[in-house]
């Protein structure tokens, strides 16, 4: 019986951890690129990156199915290696990444754009390559925005349902994440199971928010104490 609670929990944790790492890297890379890109297609690309956020998850799920499914471009390519994405655990990761990417991208981009460009210019005049400027100036100064973005995408991945159900399906022990398990429990009338799983999600979500609030409070406190220290002329 505990299996039916433990299994979705483990699967969700695995999925969320892997998806958040991937989204983190992809989101920051995309934000970095778009922050400095001023080509003709800027709006188009930006719109593309944000689209999973504004489209209904089932529409995104359908799109993913068309791409990764048996007759889709990537699906066909992968079948050469006898691999299928549809109805497999990697599909949960892919759905989670696609649905949480826009949040990571948008929020990080906003954070990067808020960094004073003169600071980045100063770094350049001091000999720093664009890479070094990003790592030593932009990213550290945008850190709180990036962290907020990460938490948002983590939460989004955790709750992802529509696209996951379409691409990964409901395979207990393999792809049944917590949200999918909750849905099917309710369908089956098993309210107890549903509520337990809901409780688990709430605990994780609030735990993450509390951690972020604590961390943010720490840095704010640190900032004000230094400001209140006496300034020596």
């Amino acid at each position: 019986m505990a299996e039916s609670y433990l299994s979705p929990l483990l699967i969700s944790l695995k999925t969320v951890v892997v998806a958040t790492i991937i989204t983190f890297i992809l989101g920051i890379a995309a934000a970095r690129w778009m922050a400095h890109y001023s080509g003709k297609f800027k709006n188009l690309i930006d719109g593309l990156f944000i689209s999973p956020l504004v489209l209904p998850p089932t529409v995104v799920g359908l799109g993913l199915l068309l791409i990764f499914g048996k007759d889709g471009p990537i699906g066909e390519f992968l079948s050469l290696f006898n691999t299928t994405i549809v109805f497999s655990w990697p599909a949960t990761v892919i759905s989670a990444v696609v649905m949480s990417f826009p949040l990571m991208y948008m929020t990080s981009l906003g954070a990067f754009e808020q960094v004073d460009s003169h600071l980045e210019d100063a770094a350049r005049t001091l000999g720093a390559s664009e890479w070094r400027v990003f790592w030593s100036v932009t990213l550290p100064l945008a850190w709180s925005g990036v962290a907020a973005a990460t938490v948002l995408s983590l939460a989004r991945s955790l709750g992802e349902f529509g696209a996951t159900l379409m691409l990964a399906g409901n395979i207990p022990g393999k792809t049944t994440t917590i949200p999918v398990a909750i849905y099917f429990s309710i369908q089956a009338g098993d309210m107890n199971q549903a509520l337990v799983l809901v409780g688990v999600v709430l605990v994780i979500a609030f735990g993450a928010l509390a951690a972020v609030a604590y961390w943010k409070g720490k840095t704010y406190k640190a900032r004000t104490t230094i400001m209140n220290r006496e300034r020596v002329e």
Partner: protein
Amino acid sequence: MMELSRRLSIRTESVYTIKTGCGWSLEKRIQRIKYRLLIPALLTSALSVIPLGGCSRNSIQTQASPITINVAAAASLTDVLKEINNLYTQGKPNISITPNFASSGTLQVQIENGAPVDVFISAAAAQMDNLQKKDMLLNDTRQNLLNNKLVLVVPIDSTLGITSFNDLISAKVERVAVGDPKSVPAGTYARQAFDQLGITAQIQPKEVLGSDVRQILTYVGTGNVDAGIVFSTDVLTSNKVKVVASAPAEINARIVYPAAVIKASKIPDAAKDYLDFLFSAQAKTVFEKYGFTVISK
């Protein structure tokens, strides 16, 4: 008291229309509503605005007021019921039917939680039993309506050479779509079939659980699974799958579709009339056209 009511009297000259769930409009011109009339007036208008499942206390003999019958039916009945509903409403201009198709388990849960359903047709006895235990069925209206057969289907272009339920244990078969046994009758029956054949343990790791038979059909039709278990009547609606085997006869014998009127229905007479029509000769022709077997009353 007079002072109070005078203070609370409203002077309005607004004209407003209240539309009720039954679709009848009420026009009132309110000039001065005294306090004593205010509360009852508000209550009646509030109640009239809440959409109700049927019309309030109207028998179908009153031709003036339109009636909507809410029918909750198992997903496998999607196509056949649409045609039957059209037949029923022919010549009855004041009656319309709102169907809701989903897995029987889902529908049962919805009804338990107060969904405004008048007639429920389930694809298995279990869901109807659950409602009966909770005394939610109108006495004596429950009857078994249909039989169906459980079949194994594969994508129409499948080359895996599956010809029986037992073939599913082969390593060539990676994924099998079945309904979630906890809420989809076709899934429950499928499990029973596996149990009977003694292959449940080998099949379970390959199962992809669907939320209703139509979804299973889609999974098989798009080729994203190697095989699926649906009702034989479902196959008729898709040209992307083919039947390769039937479930064991003992399983098929258990498949029964009960139908009943829900106790909470606001239009029990209309509902009963509809239910009777389902057992009529006219309906039987349609059911059989779609591959169902009608159980004689």
